[in-house]
């Protein structure tokens, strides 16, 4: 155990190594480590944010889905209502149309009947007149009874 000049030289070497580490070794490594830590922290924060946003989005989407379902059922309900309305309307219109056709037909029939009756009546009057004429031609003077004949003709009209 002899203390000598080696002590001084070792202390000098030590201080040089300390200086070297302080100056050249520590700062770049610390920078790299701290930068990486920051990157990792940012990444974790971003992940957390993304997770939160996903949660919100899924919440929103379920809300939207619910609303859409509700809207759809409303629309279906309205459509059904409208459909029954249309059917009812169509039924009513058809009934009206039918009634009108029937009424028209009835009027036609009545008209036809009237004109048939008229012509029948005329025919019958002519027949009767012709019959009477034939009978009378044999029995009476046409001229003497002309006023009676014309009165009958007048009646038959």
């Amino acid at each position, binding site marked *: 155990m002899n203390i*000598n*000049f*080696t002590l001084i030289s*070792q202390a000098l*070497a030590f201080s040089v190594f*300390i200086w*070297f580490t302080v100056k050249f070794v*520590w700062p770049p490594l610390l*920078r*790299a480590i701290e930068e990486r830590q920051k990157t990792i922290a940012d990444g974790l924060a971003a992940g957390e944010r993304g997770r939160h946003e996903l949660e919100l989005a899924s919440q929103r989407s379920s809300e939207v889905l619910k609303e859409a379902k509700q809207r759809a059922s409303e629309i279906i309900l309205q459509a059904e209502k409208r459909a029954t309305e249309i059917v009812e309307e169509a039924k009513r219109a058809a009934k009206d149309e039918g009634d009108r056709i029937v009424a028209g037909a009835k009027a036609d029939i009545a008209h036809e009947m009237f004109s048939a009756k008229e012509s029948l009546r005329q025919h019958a009057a002519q027949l009767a007149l012709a019959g009477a004429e034939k009978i009378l031609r044999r029995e009476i003077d046409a001229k003497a009874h002309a006023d009676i004949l014309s009165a009958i003709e007048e009646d038959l009209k």
Partner: protein
Amino acid sequence: MASGTELTPTSYIDHHLTYLTTKVSEGSFGVLHVDTLITSLILGVISFGFIWLIVRKATPGVPSKSQAFIELAVEFIDNEVKNTFHGNRHVLVAPLALTVFVWVLMMNAMDILPIDIMAWVTENVFGMHNWKIVPTTDVNTTFALALSIWFLMIFFNLKVKGVGGWMHELFCTPFGKNPLLWILNLLFNFIEYVSKPLSHSLRLFGNIYAGEIIFLLLGMWAATGVSGTIFGSILGAGWAIFHILIVTLQAFIFMMLTVVYISMAHESH
């Protein structure tokens, strides 16, 4: 080993404990242990150069395996410093702790290299008859480290507390402000300031030196023949494995004490 003269246990151990010296000036203090200095310098340059080469290309992205290894060590040390030192540790304390840990660990680790093989290599390859391969078995190394840290401690005491604040601390702690206690306080602090570098350096020196002596003693089994050599080798292997723990632990303790001493200099009572 290969000293040319007769090999006795004493000469064997003596040989392994002899430094390669050179005289730089007169007196016993003018001696320089060339082996200690060169070995520690080579170790420091290799380890800090290696770290620097990797750190220079350090990327904040995905680190390479070597960068991850350096970061592992640095973050381990940084955590220890963070728990002890409550200031801006990146200015000096944390890099200082890294320097101390890496350098002391490397110097201690030389103890694990087989002592006689290394002696053969230094003698026959480099032509150095005496070459102590473990710088921390030289008390000059451990004192140099401990005293440098001691001066840093004094420096930070003065810088943080000022001369008055430090004097107040020397006279008024740990027992109290009473003027009757001033002398006792000063004496107590004096003992503390003397014992800090002594215990700091001698703990490291003692552990590594003792480890080396045990390797030497185990190495002497080789003198008893083949079975003795085998027995000695087995014991030596066991001691080397155990020594991995001591080497790391002593480097860690030395670093922790460094951090604690400098933290204490920053904190006023």
